[in-house]
């Protein structure tokens, strides 16, 4: 039986009737058409589905949609400000932190959480924060550099 779920996604309130066994990832990708959030494994191993649930980096593939009832969800689609890349996104672009791009949405959300709670993370802080987000293209070097640069850019 479907349950009614009220969830604020990127600042917009949505009310949905949804099967209790469906995941937050399915709600985002299939019900709301927000396909920026990726499914790389479906079992919490890869981190590509990471979103912020009430500000906390969360694997949306391991979160039931009904658990997000009454919550605020942020996805990669909500990061740009006034139609422009925010400083973290811009740093990813400028530093070559994006190759195939499949890990990028989850990586950006994890880094967003890190930068909100830490003004000046060092390299080890950054590596620890993104250690649940797998990337097979970059060797992580340029991702770490981009997050560091974004943390230092106070403009």
């Amino acid at each position, binding site marked *: 039986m479907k349950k009614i779920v009220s969830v604020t996604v990127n600042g917009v309130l949505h009310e949905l009737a949804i099967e209790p066994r469906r995941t937050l990832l399915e709600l985002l990708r299939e019900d709301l058409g927000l396909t920026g959030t990726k499914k790389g494994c479906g079992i919490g191993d890869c981190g590509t589905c990471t979103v912020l649930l009430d500000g906390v980096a969360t694997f949306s593939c391991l979160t039931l949609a009904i658990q997000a009832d009454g919550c605020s969800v942020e996805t990669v*689609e909500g990061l740009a400000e006034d139609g422009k890349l925010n400083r973290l996104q811009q740093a990813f672009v400028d530093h070559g932190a994006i*190759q195939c791009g499949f*890990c990028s949405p989850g990586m950006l959300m994890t880094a967003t959480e890190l930068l909100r709670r830490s003004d000046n993370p060092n390299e080890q802080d950054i590596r620890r924060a993104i250690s649940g*987000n797998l990337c*097979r293209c*970059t*060797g992580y070097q*340029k991702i770490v550099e981009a997050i560091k640069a974004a943390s230092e850019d106070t403009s």
Partner: protein
Amino acid sequence: MSKHRILNTRAPRVDAADKATGKALYTDDLKRPSVLTGAILHSPLAHARILNIDTSRAEKLPGVKAVVTHREAGTTPYGVSPARYDETVFCHDKVRYVGDEIAAVAAIDLDTALEATSLIKVDFEELPVVLDGRTAMDEGQPQLHEMYKNNICAQVHWHFGDIEEGRRESHLIRTDRLSSKMQDAAFMEPQSILAETESSGSLTMWSSTQAPHYIQRTLAMALNIPLHKVRVIKPAVGGGFGPKASCSSAELATCLLAIRTGQPVKLTFDREQVFLHSRARHQFFHTMTTGVKKDGSLAFLEHECLLDGGAYASFGIATIYYSGSLLGGPYRLKNMKYDGHRVVTNKPVCGAQRGHGAVIARALFEVQLDRIAEELGMDPVELRLKNVMEAGETTCNELFVSSFGMREALEAVRDSAAWKKKRSSGGKTRRDGKGIGAACGFFVSGAGYPIYRSRTYHCTVVTKVDEVGGGVTVSSGAADIGQGSDTVLAMITAEELGLNLDDVRVLSGDSSLSVDLGAYSSRTTLMTGHACREAARDAKKQILEAIAGKLEVPAETLDLREGKVVSLAGELDFSRLRKEYLQEHKGFSDLPDTPQLTFAEASRIAFLELGTIVGTGKYRPPPLGGSFKGAKVGTSPAFGCSAQIAEVTVDLETGEITVGHITGAHDCGYAINVTQVEGQMQGSMMMGMGEALMEQIIYDNKGRIVNANLAEYKIPTALDMPHLDAIIVESNEPNGPYGAKEVGEGAIMPVIPCILNAIYDATGVRIEELPVTPERLVAAMQAAKSRRG
């Protein structure tokens, strides 16, 4: 200062902003009306005869629109190499590995499709299995395929120069062994396919593929559809690294379901299916005997290799050739003998993966060089420097290296990593838990020949100038799978036409746009780069000729630079052309405000003169390689080369290995995009490090993968990876556009051996089986200790 305005910069990727905002669409993100969901029934058994397939219950399940087996699909054999077409869309006589495809279903949603696959009843007669590649050729072993006697799928026997003479010349000869486990490419995006038919009978398939052209051919052949009716489109792809270069049963099945239902069908693998489909790195067993003269120069190499390839051939024919041929360099080696066998076993199928065929062979050879250096009392870097080839030389197996910065790369990492200071003197290892190791490698910059025998151009590019003026659109079948080829094509076009990067639109990855063999063998920058440059120059010539005609000056006196037409022969009066342009742009606000004629004006006026302006370019390598059997594999118009130094710390109690730093230098000829070259190098270091230390597919005794997920199949995380230094060496390759050649795969070659050599320096122990897990290392250290007493 660079002689180019756009090239050799750190221009951001053209697709980066879309990927940073979630706008980039991958196949599974695509939506079609009334789309059905596909699912596949995989074999639960590693080897069995199919007695009967009963789909009646599945067909009756409400919501099921089609169920297909070999009866619907036919049994046209297909594969990668035409000489080894050993697959059919679905199994018909036997299943040969756990995961082999038996049937597929299209239904209104995934739950229904999966339930339907569970309702298909297959009667099997279980057969004995072959799981160990080392015994697969033995008499009395079960046979997988009638066409592969003794389970031998391919064998190569080469002898270049004279091994016996090499033996006689040798002062020191030693034999070493190294084996590996099957691996997974572990790209982040699971394969996804969307197929749709039109009433005209045309078929369009969107797929996370690396090679739209080959897939188009395979779909047409195996499904018996005219080639021109098949269109393959590659949306954004989340990494490939090789396995996505071959046509899959899932692609064929999804197309068949779309044809039979008349509705779009989408099928996306879950992560376990990615592992089952595999087509990733083979399992290698190498034995090498190498002889050197007193001064350390190489005298000969005798190399035996056994490849366990899983159940079908896939890319494996190329793999077994590459394993041998790519030891011809980067060192001077006159005498080389190679005997390679690729066997089939009842395991998921191996194919191409970054550094195709050559990675484990390279690892053993570079380890052996270190062992030789130690016995000779030479520094391992010095031993290598003594032997490296220089540009203009040809290997014993007839590979010509037209540019070769091997020496520069090795010296660069030696100096950057402070090798001389850190490496203990006299070839003695430290054995104190800290170690440093070096290695080299080289790789093709594009395969010299297509996979099927043909005189086809390897790529064509069409550059159309916007009729409205101002921009251009580059159309290419090239496949950007994350490596950044779209950006390379945009940069080359902008450079040639004097445009900004954002004036160039790149359409790519679509078989209807142009011919391009795809993203494999590190070919795109060199090959498609050539065609792209030619197309841009063709378009430019047409524009300038039209303008020159209007101005009544020779076209050679005009050029396009920084968005404007410039005259090389004194000032010209453009006012008549400007007037013509302004007349048709009343009400526009972005009108030209410079004294010179802008590209927008020039391209518009050229269109008014000539009609649509289209520049075309093409590339096909010249005939390459020797005349011996298999001489074509390993040929390339150019070769990239790489040197790396790894520094490791080993916990001598637990065997835990921490890689503290990797310094790499790669000769890419000329860096079209500096950031992207570094990115390819760093990504290669990560994949190589995973293969050296943690990556292995584990099977149970029934041929089932035990660790088909990204938690138990470990790849390096950000915490595992050290700081990676990437040094670019530029040797100006004469056969590459602007001097450019590969970086995508050459940079993985030294990773494994430089780590193995560093582990030896740290522990005094050599490991002969990859990956070097803590368990294996501890066991080896204990064994060494008990040997020493």
